[in-house]
């Protein structure tokens, strides 16, 4: 009888109630976490270290050590190239997307005619630019033809990044920087379409900065330019970290590595090799995440 009385006593206190309900509330997630995350994760690690044979009696798993990893990196013809390409893609795109979305958030925060319409347009990619639509769009023939027609028509051509490139090279900017920037201009659709959520997050952050700071700085004679560097940027710096992480995570769904892993798994039924590839991908993403978090969090300004 005593333990029950004990529990009942515990439940009557506020703290006890909180602990009880806390357990109830977390319980569904905990089951999901174990069944749909932890067990698959461990299994995936196990598969990646073994040879899997599917037969009529079920699957047979034999431990073979790191053979799958070695095979993924050295024998498989496409995997290491695609992995490196997609990692470089992430490293190139993340700074562009974060800077671009911060800039747009600042612009969209100003008061001007048609602000709500333009906000609505800029968040449209959050809804449209994902998954299958993107994939099919890139293979659309009509679009490709139209684009060709447009780019050969001269008017747009004059504004393309080629002129810009020449101008910057003449001005003495280093070649890699020029190529990086002109590449960004050419991929403007990709960048815009990937930065919807990031713009939202920055916008929300900018709006939470107290207007008194800006008023005070204006009284002291700061220009808008100075206010951006001395107030806006430090205040949203924690969100830069958030957005960098979000951008890296968001790139999972577009990564060509995913296709390679899926096709190795489901087309050729080489589950072991596929799991090894998935783990290599996961580990390299983690590496990028840790390095960028380390460098950014050193510079982040927290109010506390």
């Amino acid at each position, binding site marked *: 009888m005593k333990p029950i009385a004990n529990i009942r006593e515990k439940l009557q206190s506020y703290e006890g*109630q909180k*602990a009880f*309900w*806390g*357990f109830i*509330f*977390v319980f569904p*997630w*905990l089951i*999901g*976490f*174990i*069944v*749909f*995350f932890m067990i*698959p*994760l461990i*299994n*995936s690690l196990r*598969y990646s270290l073994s040879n899997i044979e599917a037969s009529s009696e079920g*699957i047979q798993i034999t431990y073979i050590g790191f053979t799958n990893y070695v095979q993924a990196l050295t024998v498989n013809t496409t995997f290491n190239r695609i992995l490196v390409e997609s990692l470089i893609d992430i490293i190139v795109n993340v700074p562009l997307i974060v800077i671009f979305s911060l800039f*747009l958030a600042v*612009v969209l925060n*100003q008061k*001007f005619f048609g602000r*709500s319409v*333009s906000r*609505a347009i800029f968040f*449209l990619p*959050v*809804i*449209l630019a*994902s*998954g*299958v639509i993107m*994939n*099919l*769009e890139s293979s*659309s*023939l*009509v*679009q490709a033809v*139209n684009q060709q027609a447009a780019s050969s028509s001269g008017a747009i051509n004059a504004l393309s990044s080629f002129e810009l490139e020449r101008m910057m090279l003449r001005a003495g900017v280093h070649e890699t920087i020029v190529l990086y920037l002109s590449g960004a201009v050419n991929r*403007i*659709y990709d960048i*815009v379409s990937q930065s919807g959520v990031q713009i*939202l*997050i920055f*916008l*929300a952050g900018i*709006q939470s900065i107290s207007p008194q700071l800006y008023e005070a700085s204006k009284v002291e004679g700061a220009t808008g330019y100075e206010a951006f560097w001395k107030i806006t940027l430090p205040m949203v710096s924690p*969100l830069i970290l958030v957005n960098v992480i979000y951008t890296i995570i968001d790139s*999972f769904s577009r990564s060509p590595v*995913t296709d390679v892993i899926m096709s190795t798994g489901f087309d050729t039924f080489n*589950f072991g090799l596929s*799991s090894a590839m*998935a783990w290599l*991908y*996961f580990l390299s993403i983690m590496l990028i*995440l840790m390095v960028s978090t380390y460098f950014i969090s050193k510079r982040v300004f927290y109010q506390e």
Partner: protein
Amino acid sequence: MKIARLLSLDNWKRWLWSTVRFVLIVGLAFVILYPILQKISTAFKHQKDLYSPVVVWVPEHFSLENFRIAIWIMDYWNTLLNTILLAGITTILTTASCALAGYAFARLKIKGGKILFAGVILTILVPPTTILIPIYMNLREFTFMGIIPLLTGDSVNLLNSYWPFILTAITASSLKAGLFIFIFRQFFKGIPKVIEEAAYIDGAGVGTTFFRIMLPNALPAIVTVMLFSFVWQWNDTFYTTTYLTSSNVLATQLSSLPYNLAIQLDGEAGTNDPFFQSMVQDTGILLSMLPLIIMYLFVQRYFVQSVERSGVVG
């Protein structure tokens, strides 16, 4: 005199910035809208217009032929209904389970709460690709930690049904659920503790406090999570194409559209043309985006506001 000149210089600067801003925003908006406009224009074109050098944007022969074929091949209305059903169910269940978990992590004391929350972060960080194959095999012979075979004597195959989506949604582990739990936790942390304590003094238990006080207050976060969840589920091909191989939802229909087009259109004369097929494919994409765009038109104001207030920013 001097002041007037200064004023005018300031004025000039303001005008210049307004112009630059205007050009920039219109240009970028055009970049975003371009593919959609392009698709709308293509969808109404007749096949003849494709080769006409005069036609760029406005078709010469308006026709609904593309829509007819795309609707026929995709089995559009049926598919649409399935997709709305699937996305709706997962959205409601995911929001409910994530709200509970988020509240527990924000306010209730759980043993090892910090470690568990690190688990939530881990689910955000691990690419879904890494765990897909074990989940796939798990669902093919679903045992639920060995409970189901005890009851029925055999494991069940959950693939090709909505069960994988329902189960992952109930247990807050569906698509990007970790992110939703994070949003809810940040939001609930922002609500003052005093409110809860007042409710407790007035005699409300933790459950009552959550359902009667915290949830109504969390409306912005709920709207944000529901919208994201609905949209991502709608567009998701990653899980959908693995869990559902033969069911009709828009995501699977779209990804097999090019293939179906090539097969179905083969019989009709004059349709065995890659450009025409591409035209129908564009129409199909437009048809599957249309419900989302219409929905967005109605909720976008609320969407922007709710993200601003939902404490994603924390």
